[in-house]
């Protein structure tokens, strides 16, 4: 009998795998390292210091960008998750209906459409509304972020719903639970891990967005990523590294928490 194919036995496997990891993580490690640099340079090490964290912390522009980012991310994550719960229920708990496949594809569409296309189309669409209504507030950004967060919130919630035992909900109905009560007392308590995972994923995705935000934002509405983008065009200081490192830490924290939420309580 021939030996089964084992990719690890192929020549160069280890080298290529190592190269991939180096390319993925070395730049990030450098970025993190230089956020603690004492000097002005982002390529020359001059000793350990937290000065760039302090300066970023005291920077008014960074403060307001952070507040804006978090405001948008929290609101968009909440809205996207709420909509995703409804969408997931409609695609898992309803008798098969005509057009279900199309609806399913449409919910996930934002994952497929190139972000730049979404950005341009939203720019034009919102511009028309701005002209018509004169409103230039934050809701354009919130709505845009909600839209592209929905599929990310939808995935873990749908997975959780599909994994749930349908006979539990039937037992709830059998024991005189109306559909609303069954959802409230049977479905929802078991759905929480999925909802938390979807919410946190949305939060991270929203916090990180550059392209759509850059196109949709009105004057003075800078989020952290668009502020950073603006700074990069002028003078680059390790302050940028410090903000990036902070964002990275938040993401890692969120993803880790999400991992535990979706694992516990089986």
């Amino acid at each position, binding site marked *: 009998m021939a030996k089964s194919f084992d990719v690890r036995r192929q020549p160069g496997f280890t080298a290529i795998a190592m190269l991939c990891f180096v390319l993925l993580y070395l730049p990030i490690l450098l970025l993190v390292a230089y956020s603690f640099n004492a000097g002005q340079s982002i390529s020359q090490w001059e000793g350990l210091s937290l000065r760039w964290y302090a300066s970023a912390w005291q920077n008014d522009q960074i403060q307001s960008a952070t507040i804006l980012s978090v405001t948008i991310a929290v609101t968009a994550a909440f809205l996207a998750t709420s909509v995703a719960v409804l969408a997931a229920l409609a695609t898992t708990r309803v008798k098969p209906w005509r057009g279900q496949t199309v609806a399913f594809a449409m919910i996930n569409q934002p994952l497929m459409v190139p972000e730049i296309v979404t950005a341009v189309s939203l720019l034009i669409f919102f511009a028309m509304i701005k002209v018509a209504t004169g409103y230039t507030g934050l809701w354009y950004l919130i709505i845009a972020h909600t839209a592209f967060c929905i599929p990310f919130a939808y995935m873990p919630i749908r997975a959780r719903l599909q994994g749930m035992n349908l006979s539990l909900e039937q037992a709830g109905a059998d024991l005189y*639970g109306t559909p609303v009560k069954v959802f409230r007392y049977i479905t929802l308590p078991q759905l929480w891990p999925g909802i938390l995972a979807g919410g946190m994923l949305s939060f991270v995705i929203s916090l990180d967005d550059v392209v759509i935000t850059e196109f949709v934002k009105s004057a003075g509405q800078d989020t952290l990523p668009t502020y950073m983008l603006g700074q990069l065009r002028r003078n680059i200081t390790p302050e940028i590294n410090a903000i990036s490192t902070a964002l990275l830490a938040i993401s890692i924290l969120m993803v880790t928490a999400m991992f535990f939420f979706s694992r516990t309580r089986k």
Partner: protein
Amino acid sequence: MIEIDTVSKLFGAGDSAFRALDRVSVTIKENEFFTLLGPSGCGKTTLLRLIAGFEGPTSGKILLDGQDLADKPPYRRPVNTVFQSYALFPHMTVAENVGFGLTMLGKPKSEVAATVSEMLALVRMTNLADRKTSQISGGQQQRVALARALAPRPKVLLLDEPLSALDFKLRKEMQLELKRLQSETGITFVFVTHDQEEALTMSDRIAVMSGGTIRQIGGPREIYDQPSERFVADFIGDTNFLSAEMIARTGDSAQLRLGQGAEVTARAGQVDKTSGAVTLAIRPEHARLVALDAGQLTGTLDDIVYFGTDTHYHITLDGIGTRFVLRRQNSPDEMRPVQQGERVGIALASSAGQVLKD
């Protein structure tokens, strides 16, 4: 009390539709322990789901106390289910599970608590009231599922193979317990099983199902002693089938000539025939081994299988070649020992056989 009136259920649509139930009609009485018995896939669960309201019939009607259930969703039917998988709520304690139905009905907290402790006492689970349902054994989960379904005092309790996941001893114990609960509560039980012995020991009446239809309805004795057709006779207990010729018919009894020439009297209440070829069913315990010329049938003894409480004798009938199985209870006063390969006679108990409709 429950009237099921020519109910059919199709899954899928068009030519590929699958007929899970085919014009099923049955009336289940008040306070009855009624059993649906049949092989896996014959539509037992489907019928329960129609009564509970999880599915609607494709045609036909289901009435409860004379009232059509068609427009009533499950949560408005005074019917509770013990699910095959138990379906206990994993995020609730045992007591919360049992109290769920009453809470949904909007009963005051004190009443819920009182009924819950009453129910837990009934199924002997009081000491585990605060456990999570994942922390109790299969048999205990089964009791909780039972208590949960009984707590709202439904008019009808539906039980879908509730004992099939339990091991033999626990199953025997729970059979008695279920019987006790049914007579103590006076609730109508509709019980599903594929185990014929379980059906015979527990039921007031049994409906034997096959391929989406009900083949026979009757008490355990009636089903066992007077099976109406080959499927029922075969599914319930062991049966010998003999080809015979009907030569006379008076009322419910018929005179038959067997293949080897002997004439016997048999019960024929289930068939309309008055003559011609028929099939006779004879239970293995309704025949005796006798001397070669003392019975109605003769044959060669092929196998003797010892079962502890009784012994099975496998005989090939002379001339016909049919296998006949005969069962005899073992007793200390042993009869004349017979040898494998010996030719023997078989005496049939008078009127023990049943003529089947084919």
